[in-house]
């Protein structure tokens, strides 16, 4: 007889495994425990936030959107809000010397951006050449740009020659 056709060992093993089957009491206990936990889960109060999130997910899934569309929509909303916000804070002023002042008014130091300079601007000449960076205040009551003095740039402060 072919050795591969001898299933006696397997039959013996299955006969032994038949004795390993759980008792009926164990299966009944499992069902009791399962139903107990199921009832307990139903009795846990669901928060309004969880219900709102669940309702929102169901509502969005009802549209059956392509996955790329929500991301594109989110970026578009952020871009629109940023453009509107920045456009409300940009100030362009000019002086008699033909210099144009472009200032971006950011949140003041009274906000959470305490360590960030209140706002900043760039002075550009008519040739649009960057000369230096100057700081402007965040106070909306001060419409003009403010130069916080650090160095004495007045040419009249220094003598061309040593004389007495």
């Amino acid at each position: 007889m072919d050795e591969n056709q001898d299933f006696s060992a397997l039959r013996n093993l299955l006969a032994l495994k038949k004795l390993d089957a759980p008792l009926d009491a164990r299966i009944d206990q499992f069902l009791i425990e399962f139903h107990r936990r199921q009832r307990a889960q139903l009795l846990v109060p669901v928060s309004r936030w969880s219900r709102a999130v669940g309702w929102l997910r169901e509502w969005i899934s009802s549209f059956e959107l392509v996955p790329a569309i929500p991301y594109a929509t989110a970026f578009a909303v952020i871009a629109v809000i940023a453009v509107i916000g920045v456009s409300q804070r940009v100030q362009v002023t000019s002086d008699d010397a033909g210099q144009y002042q472009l200032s971006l008014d950011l949140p003041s130091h009274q906000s959470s951006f305490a360590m960030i300079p209140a706002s900043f601007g760039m002075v550009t000449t008519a040739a649009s050449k960057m000369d230096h960076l100057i700081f402007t205040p965040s106070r909306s009551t001060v419409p003009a740009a403010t130069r916080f003095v650090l160095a004495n740039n007045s040419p009249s402060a220094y003598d061309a020659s040593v004389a007495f």
Partner: protein
Amino acid sequence: MTQAWRFRTSGIVWPFLFLFAAVPAFFLLDEFTPARATDEFQPANDEINALFERAKPSVVKVHSGDKFISAGTGFFIDDRGTVLTSSNVIGDNTNARVVVNGVELDAKILGNDPRSGLAMLRVSYDESPSLPLGHSGDLRTGNNVVVVGYPMSFPVAFSEGQICGFDISFIVPPKNDGTGKGSVATVERFATTHIHANASISPGQVGSPLLNEQGEVIGIVATSPDSGQTIYALPVEAMQKIIADFNQYGRARHGWVGVNVVQGPDSNHDGRTVRVVQAVPGTPASKSGIRPGDTVMRIDEREIYRPADVLDASFFSHVGGSMTVVVRRDQDLFSYNFPVIERPSTPAPSVPGAPASSSAPLTSAPMDPDSPGDAEPILVNHIVSDSH
């Protein structure tokens, strides 16, 4: 037969052993505990904090201009609302405001002098808390100094440093003009010697008082050419001279006699390096006979070694007074007495090699070249010029 020796201690020994180990341990722990370091620095911290709290009410924000506002710091020097600040904060503007306790008050400009870098304002503020004025003459390199001022739009701030030196010239770093080529560093010169300190400041703190450890004003911050890393401050004595001019004339009156000088070689190996280049026409010096090449030895009581000494002597001269100048020509000393006139706002540039004067030289007599310095009075019977 060997037997292990055992040290048997009686009960009375244990307390002594404990003390023997505990006392050194206590001192070691006390030496290395961080609390000890805090205790040592606490008096200094309290002192610095008290100095800052005393000075804070006297320090104010200064704004000038309408369209483009220039903002800096100032401080009260009396109880009548007089504020000192930097002339660079005022610039060419004709109006100024002072922010006191959050209230912006219109200020009257009592004086604005770009050459000294000082401006004086007055606001209607009775019993203004003023800072006491000290002395800068006894300051030495390494002394602690304090700056109290308003950085940008932030609240009043404190910075501390040490005196690096006393300089009349400073290096302006090259500026980036946007062309990519850059520029070269330049050397600028103050009108008089300034205090150089390594206290760092931010934009808006020019015009702040420079205080000593007693909280007295020893100078006013004039500029920071290295983006706030170090400062140059006009000394308090120079401030007082300009304040007196502001009070009396409404402007600063800088005196001079009209002599252009340069720094030359120390040919006599005595440290005297200031050479006369030109006597400016139309000035008292032009009529005196002082010549190009003369070595300036003394101006009034001040010994002259470097160009800075000349500028200091000139800065503290008073218009309408007189100035005695001793020069060396060859090996002879000549003394000249000049009337001090007001220095023009834009002095004539130095012309190397230009003749001193075409006027006939006055009679002169040589002085003793070995005459001592300021220990002995100058021989005055050989005054050669009095150009009144």
